[in-house]
């Protein structure tokens, strides 16, 4: 509190309270910890081997603790509470440290700045709690180290050595580095020839701790030992704001040496204090609003939201948000296509949406990596190709070892395949999680008594869809998988619509015989051939040179026939010069399959496509 002044103090607490109410509501309603949970997939197991895994490297314990807490992101309210309380604790210790240095200016703004940074970091769904906890633990350790300042040099020497070693093991190199710099700043600010030299010496010598740890104790690199949490690791990418946060505290300590002029508390000062508080609140609010807003508008946040909505099966919502915001991202395009299917719009609206990625956003195989592996697995699961779903999930498991999403997929696909022993293993792991215990118990019970599965509609449905033909899946010729699914179950609507979409997007429409197409259309009780299929049929007939053909009672509408004729005439007018004809064709047929083939299809038009695909 800036001045021992009741009015200002009350205003101070009021401002902090309002800020944190805003913070909590933002996390709860906008960031949505459930979405963060889905993206991060934190799994905590009540199992000693799970713990042992996190004891093997510095920073492991804080990850372990972070996983314990962030598993409760599963529930939106507890997730928001955890993030808010962590931020509140950071504020408290920042304030206490400032107070220790008798620094009483900007006492609202300065402790709120790191909290704003934390809100920004958490506003991304992949913003892990570990980063906040490392900061919090470092501040706590530093705060208690400051309390040793009046003790003897020996006590401070030992105190630093012990606390820095413990912090290094607990929070890793990033936290240790910040602690070391803060202690050094603090010692230099309160420099005393007799008392400070040994402590400064040990602080400097402690730089060897990460080196020795990497050299003799742990199986980590020097970079990992010195810079844990500050360098990319696996799929973790630190945001720039994190570095600012780490620089902020040493600067804050140094800044605290600038002492203000002594002023008596007067009525005028009281007013100045309140005004200052208001200005600080306004600045903090604006910074928060701007940073928070920028993160919410970011492409990363948008992609996370689409992924989350897809996982939740909120397909209408996906179509709604992608209508408002066009994205060229492959995952967005992929989930948009899925959303079209689940809202019965795939055969009609496939080319009404930007299909920059073509067939590569219909299936993610071949070049799939990272979280795409599970997206692909879930697509195959929906299609009923359980073997492919399981294969992709196994690949995902190598990267996201304990992801509940992966383990659940492996458990259910193994159950459907009848590999109960393999399923049992996944379920035994999930059984050790408080979140998934109930889910796991249901299937474990089913494995003990398989009659449970006989009345499980999902398992029975998927078993009825699985291909029985044995062939090699190469992830490139997806039509083979889809035809195998249709052979097993000609009423597999998703397989048919994805087959048609795949053949159209990849310009392989002649790979499905007309008779087969008509057969499936009848099996699936289409009253008429969907428009895009009719457009594709025009191409098919032209390429095959068929004048007489049997559509089994279906018709190609005259509008489509005339449209195709018109399209080719326009091209003819421009001497088949696609570039010259583009504007006119776009105006008249921009949402047609023909236009996609000539102008959008990545395989035909974009030479940079392959490069971009590999980059993603």
């Amino acid at each position, binding site marked *: 509190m800036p001045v021992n002044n009741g009015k200002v103090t009350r205003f101070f607490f009021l401002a902090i309270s309002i800020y944190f109410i805003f913070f909590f509501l933002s996390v709860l309603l906008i960031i949505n910890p459930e979405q963060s949970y889905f993206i991060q997939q934190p799994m905590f197991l009540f199992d000693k081997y799970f713990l042992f895994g996190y004891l093997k490297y510095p920073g492991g314990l804080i990850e372990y603790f972070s996983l314990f807490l962030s598993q409760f992101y599963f529930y939106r309210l507890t997730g928001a509470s955890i993030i808010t309380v962590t931020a509140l604790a950071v504020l408290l210790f920042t304030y206490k440290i400032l107070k220790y240095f008798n620094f009483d200016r900007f006492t609202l703004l300065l402790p709120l700045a790191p909290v704003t940074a934390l809100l920004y970091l958490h506003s991304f769904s992949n913003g892990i709690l570990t980063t906040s906890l490392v900061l919090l633990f470092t501040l706590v350790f530093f705060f208690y180290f400051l309390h040793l300042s009046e003790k003897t040099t020996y006590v401070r020497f030992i105190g630093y050595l012990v606390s820095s070693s413990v912090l290094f093991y607990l929070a890793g190199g990033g936290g240790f580095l910040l602690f070391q710099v803060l202690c050094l700043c603090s010692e230099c600010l309160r420099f005393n020839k007799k008392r400070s030299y040994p402590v400064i010496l040990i602080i400097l010598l402690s730089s060897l701790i990460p080196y020795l740890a990497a050299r*003799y104790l742990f199986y980590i690199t020097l970079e990992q030992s010195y810079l844990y949490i500050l360098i990319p690791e696996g799929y973790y990418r630190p945001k720039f704001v994190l570095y600012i946060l780490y620089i902020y505290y040493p600067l804050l300590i140094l800044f605290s040496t600038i002492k203000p002029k002594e002023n008596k508390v007067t009525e005028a000062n009281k007013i100045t204090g309140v005004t200052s508080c208001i200005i600080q609140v306004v600045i903090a609010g604006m910074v928060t609003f701007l940073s928070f807003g920028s993160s919410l508008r970011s492409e990363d946040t948008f992609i996370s939201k689409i992924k989350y909505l897809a996982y939740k099966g909120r397909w209408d919502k996906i179509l709604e948000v992608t209508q408002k915001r066009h994205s060229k991202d492959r995952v967005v395009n992929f989930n948009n296509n899925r959303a079209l299917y689940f809202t019965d719009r795939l055969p009609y609206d496939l080319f009404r949406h930007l299909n920059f990625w073509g067939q590569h956003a219909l299936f993610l195989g071949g070049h799939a990596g990272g979280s795409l592996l599970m997206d692909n697995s879930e697509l195959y699961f929906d299609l009923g190709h359980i073997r492919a779903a399981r294969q992709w999930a196994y*690949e995902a498991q*190598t990267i996201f070892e304990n992801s509940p999403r992966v383990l659940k997929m492996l458990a259910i696909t193994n159950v459907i395949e009848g590999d109960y*022993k393999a399923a049992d293993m996944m379920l035994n792991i999930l059984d050790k999680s408080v979140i998934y215990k109930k889910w796991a118990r249901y299937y474990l019970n089913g494995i003990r008594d398989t009659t449970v599965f006989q009345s499980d509609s999902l398992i029975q449905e998927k078993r009825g869809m699985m291909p029985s033909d044995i062939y090699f899946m190469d992830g490139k010729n997806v039509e083979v998988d889809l035809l195998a699914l249709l052979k097993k179950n000609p009423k597999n609507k998703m397989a048919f619509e994805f087959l048609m979409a795949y053949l159209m997007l990849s310009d392989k429409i002649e790979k499905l015989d007309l008779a087969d197409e008509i057969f499936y259309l009848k099996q699936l009780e289409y009253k008429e051939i969907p428009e895009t299929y009719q457009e594709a049929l025009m191409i098919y007939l032209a390429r095959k040179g068929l004048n007489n053909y049997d559509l089994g009672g279906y018709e190609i509408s005259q509008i489509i026939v005339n449209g195709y004729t018109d399209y080719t005439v326009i091209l003819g007018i421009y001497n088949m010069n696609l570039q010259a004809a583009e504007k006119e064709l776009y105006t008249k047929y921009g949402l047609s399959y023909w236009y996609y083939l000539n102008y959008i299809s990545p395989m035909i038009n974009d030479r940079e496509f392959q490069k971009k695909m590999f980059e993603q």
Partner: protein
Amino acid sequence: MRKTYIILLFLVIVSGLLFYYSVSSKCPSFKNIAEHDTIPAIFPDYTLIVIPPNIAPLNFIIKEEIGVTYYVKIHSKNGKAIEIINKNPCIKIPVQKWRKLLYNNRDEHLYVDVYVKTLKGTWIRYKTITNKIAEEEIDGYLVYRLINPGYRLWEKMGIYIRNIQNYHEKPIMVNNLANKNCMNCHSFSQNNPNRALFHVRGNIGGTILVKDGIIKKLNTGTDYTMSAGVYPAWNPDGTLIAFSVNIISQEFYSAGSKSIKVFDKASDLVLYNTESNVLTTSPKISTKKYETMPTWSPDGKYLYYCSAPRPEANHAIDSIKYSLLRISYDAQQNEWGEVETILSSEKAGLSVSWPRISPDGRFLMFCMSDYGYFTIYTPGSDIYVMDLKTGEYSSLSINSDQAESYHSWSGNGRWFVFSSKRLNGLCARPYFSYFDKDGKAYKAFIMPQKDPAFYETFLKNYNIPELVTAPWSVSKWDLYSTIHNEATKVAFDKSVVIDALSGATRIKTQNKGNVKN
């Protein structure tokens, strides 16, 4: 004040007596005891087995009726019995007492009595489990790679050494220190950890060779070989290492009992001299056929390997079957003898892989499966043994309906370890089996863990279990530094007129680069 001391003293004595009583009176009083004439179900299955006298305690879980108390007595002819009384069915045996009991009773039987007190208060006594303690010890350490059961991708993997006389496991190297690259094919000369190698792949790829305290990183890829060295085999004196060079591919099954097929598009054999740093080959082992999986006879005079004819175009992958061949080699003169067929795939009707000869040179252990050689993904793969005196071979009784995929001998030839997926068809686990002088293998048992439930949730494969006689002595920092250093390029033998690009006459190609697996 004195009164307080007296009360405290009294409490201490009473507590001490209670503690002594609870500890000393292990054997519960059995009232209403019911006898079961079957041995109890336990996990892991440590029943009717032969065990080494130096193995870690075989902790287990009693998988019988849920009880309130479990009592286990482990005893043998000599020495004091081990008694354990538990409130849960997880039986953890004290290491020191176990060790003493086993050492005092070599070549004797080991008895395990299991009693369960039911919820109704009655005791059930199961038929005694009778195991045998062998006279001969097993090599004290096991080296393996731990990796998730994915197919194409990985994130974390490592090569580890486990002291099988206790439960201590230590990494030899983890891929976190190798830019997350794949590491594979660890191999030792005659179970000696001081003569070892393993491959690191990717951008810092190379073969890490440890020989008598010297660590080297080799680039075994040359202009004349289709890949860097893959499957290795040290000759007995540690001067030569035979490698296969392979172009490996894989395919995934859409249905059926198999998930994946790993196969070669081409392969040959080469020989690396650790002293001259020269890689050589011969038209006899680098033919147009596929040659792979070399192993040496213990006297170093023969190189055994697997070979399959190059298939016709559009062949079915499951038609490729490997035969077992051997060729004599005179290391002094660098002379190759004639190729002999030891077991043809036509005769066996199956495909041979992973040949390994017992240290006494008499028995040849190998895998056979319906096709190919990459047995870890082949549920039908079993282990066979051939008596090299008679040429007769048979399937071992230790096989299961899941993949038995890799095996290695202990230094004394009385034990072998093998990988098996019998527990769940998914993760390979190391199993040990006693192998007597007449070539009979005894019921196998899984490598013991401190927590007997460990395997139920441990979602990693134990790849290439190799028994070694001593602990690993190379520091991880030295390995780490070597891995990140430039590799020494091996030279290709100029006198050889064949290259190992599937048997073509050697033609030097410009800037061809090397194909890596």
